[in-house]
């Protein structure tokens, strides 16, 4: 998956901040990467598990649509846990 180069530097910075937040939330949530990836794939996610891992370690940028789905997957999985 290639990064979205059409965004300007400001958006890039914002995206990196969002990525940092996602990485932190993932560490705090403490569920296996495989579980998150499977859920994300199930709601229509496109990137593979290795890319997701890289994203959550702040080593790879992903297109905004995938970022949105990762966020949704984390929120919905965390909600399942609370029940």
């Amino acid at each position, binding site marked *: 998956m290639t990064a979205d180069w059409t965004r300007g530097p400001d958006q890039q910075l914002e995206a990196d901040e969002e990525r940092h937040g996602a990485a932190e939330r993932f560490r705090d949530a403490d569920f296996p990467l*495989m579980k998150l990836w499977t*859920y994300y*794939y*199930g*709601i229509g996610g496109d990137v593979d598990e290795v890319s997701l891992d890289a994203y959550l370690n702040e080593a790879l940028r992903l*297109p905004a*649509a995938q970022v949105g789905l990762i966020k*949704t997957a984390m929120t*919905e999985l965390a909600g399942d846990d609370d029940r």
Partner: protein
Amino acid sequence: MTGNDGQAQEPDGLAQAADTDPVHSFQQMVLENPDIKGFLAELALLAAARLSVPGNSIHAGVTVLRRKKPEAVAASDAAARALDELQNGFGDGPCLTALRHRTTILVPDLTAESRWAPYVQTAVDHGVASILAVPLDLAGDAEAVLNLYSGCSHGFSGEDITSAEAFAGQAASSLRLILRITQLSDARNDLSAAMHSRTVIDMAVGAVMAQNRCDRDTAFSILTRASSTRNVKLRDVAATVITSISGEEHITTHFDE
């Protein structure tokens, strides 16, 4: 649990079975209890039976760290469960310390113990005099501790500690096997759920694209926004979209397992 020789065993025979052939009995336990809770319940019973002697009955419990929170998952009896839960409620105590530091902790005499004061006091009120906590080494897959309670002070001899540690070591390797089995079957169930949900979502995305004459990313963001503003899961939003168009309520995916 029965031995290979077909000889009927008394309830006390649990301890004997573990003494004569622990590996065999743990294997048997794995086969009979494919789920973690069932295995740990049997483990607690076996530990209590094995260490109890007339005049000094041992109560056993198992606490597991799940998502960084300790949880009392199994016990040989209600007393042990209550003690485990008490300790988890206080958030600190010998068993939790053993769990966190991965070392065996012995409290030979609770009345002389100065650490974990609030818990220790409550445990004494419950009639506990000594505690032995042995962590189960699960090689990073999970964390668990075997909690042993005795009503006698100095209720655990050096020999008991060695045997409890050996017992915990054997139990841990069987437990790791169960964890692997559970992880695989969970992964399989998750994948199967993902296949079903992805079909519904892909169809809904296509429908939104056709209705709004937009691209796939835009269709996804429309669905995602609807999901988060209404606090409804994405796949439920997708299912609603499909139902509103075609009236179909159950979209099934068939795939070979």
